[in-house]
């Protein structure tokens, strides 16, 4: 396996770091950061695996997917931020309730 393996490994690490933060933190902004980090991890794995087809002819399909993915991620982030601001406006804080009153 080439250096690309390192990046794929780092990608899976990023995904799990993000997942951890997503579960552990109550603040919505941090959850949004966490989802972005998770996304970066997935992108990294995809592109690292595309690297396997050789030095010169990398697989362009994952690249295309990741490019669109990045643009979609930023617009999803904007939507999430707008939702967060709405939540803060209504409830006075951008924190999700811990428990959903059973």
């Amino acid at each position, binding site marked *: 396996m080439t250096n690309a393996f390192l990046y794929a490994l780092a990608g899976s690490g990023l*995904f799990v770091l993000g997942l951890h*933060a997503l579960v552990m933190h109550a603040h919505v902004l941090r959850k949004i950061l966490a989802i*972005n*980090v998770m996304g970066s991890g997935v992108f990294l794995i995809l592109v*690292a695996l595309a690297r396997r087809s050789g030095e010169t002819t990398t697989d362009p399909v994952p690249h295309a997917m990741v490019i669109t993915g990045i643009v979609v991620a930023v*617009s999803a982030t904007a939507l999430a931020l707008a939702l967060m601001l709405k939540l803060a406006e209504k409830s006075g804080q951008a924190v999700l309730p811990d428990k959903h009153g059973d």
Partner: protein
Amino acid sequence: MLQWAFDTMLGFGLLWLAWRALNSSDLFKAIVLFIAFGLLMALAWVRLNAPDVALAEAAIGAGLTGALLLAALARLGAMTDQNVSGASAYPVPSAQPPAGSHFSRGLLILLLSASVAGMAYAIWSLPSYATGLSMDVAAHLDDSGVGNPVTAVLLNFRGYDTMLEMMVLLLAVLGVWSLGGLQQQPEKPVAAVLETLSRFLTPVFILAAAYLLWVGADAPGGAFQAGSVLGAAGVLLLLSGWRPRVRLMQWPLRLALTAGAGAFILLGLLTLLLEKQFLTYPVAQAGRMILLLESLATVSIAVTLAILFLSVSSGHKEKSGKGEKK
């Protein structure tokens, strides 16, 4: 050897920055670290021989996302009655994980470790050489109308994916607008230096975007990268106090937002009539059709990104009403 060392350092750097960004006690610091993380990601794309991705990441991951996050943080600070004066104005009481038993936290760590191990194993067990779809793409590249395989995939082979992506962007704008709509703010004066900077840089950005769009046919670049750069120019203009005219905010804005998705749909229907296949271009015309689609998509992406920034940073209608009365 040197390459291994560099790649290892970059990998650890990414992980470290991500960890710090997600767990630092101060939200402002977290966002700044996240922007740095985006820059390192761009470097990683270059190392992975993905210059197209690197271009998009540099404009978006490092620039636009950061601007969005900071703008949202500033408004959050104003909204939740926190002191906005200092960089450390956003301490998060719950930066430390909320109460949870040691057992459940231990279980979570265990599960997460297991999933890292699982992913690592899955990646490790894949064959170290696989052509994926690169051969298919190379075989049909001559018929695609462009020379850059990534552009060929985006605009030709997987054209309808890109069409759906354009619709996702449109939906994001609709979603943000439905949460309060876009308000019209008056232009506000800003520092002369910032104004000069934006005056000087905007033409450069536009030139760069046009260049990226044009070379996208044969070299790294294309609609998404060009749109991101143009969108970044829009954000810079908005930051330096510029506001589009009211007249432009009505149907011209809507037209620009829908141009990309609309062009895909219309062209798709046209090809359905001509070629009996949705978004399958006649070989002779493919290059021109792709250029047309890319140009409109660039405009849509740029306007979408700038409008998203404006909406997130400027707030809702109720609030603006108060602001204008002052």
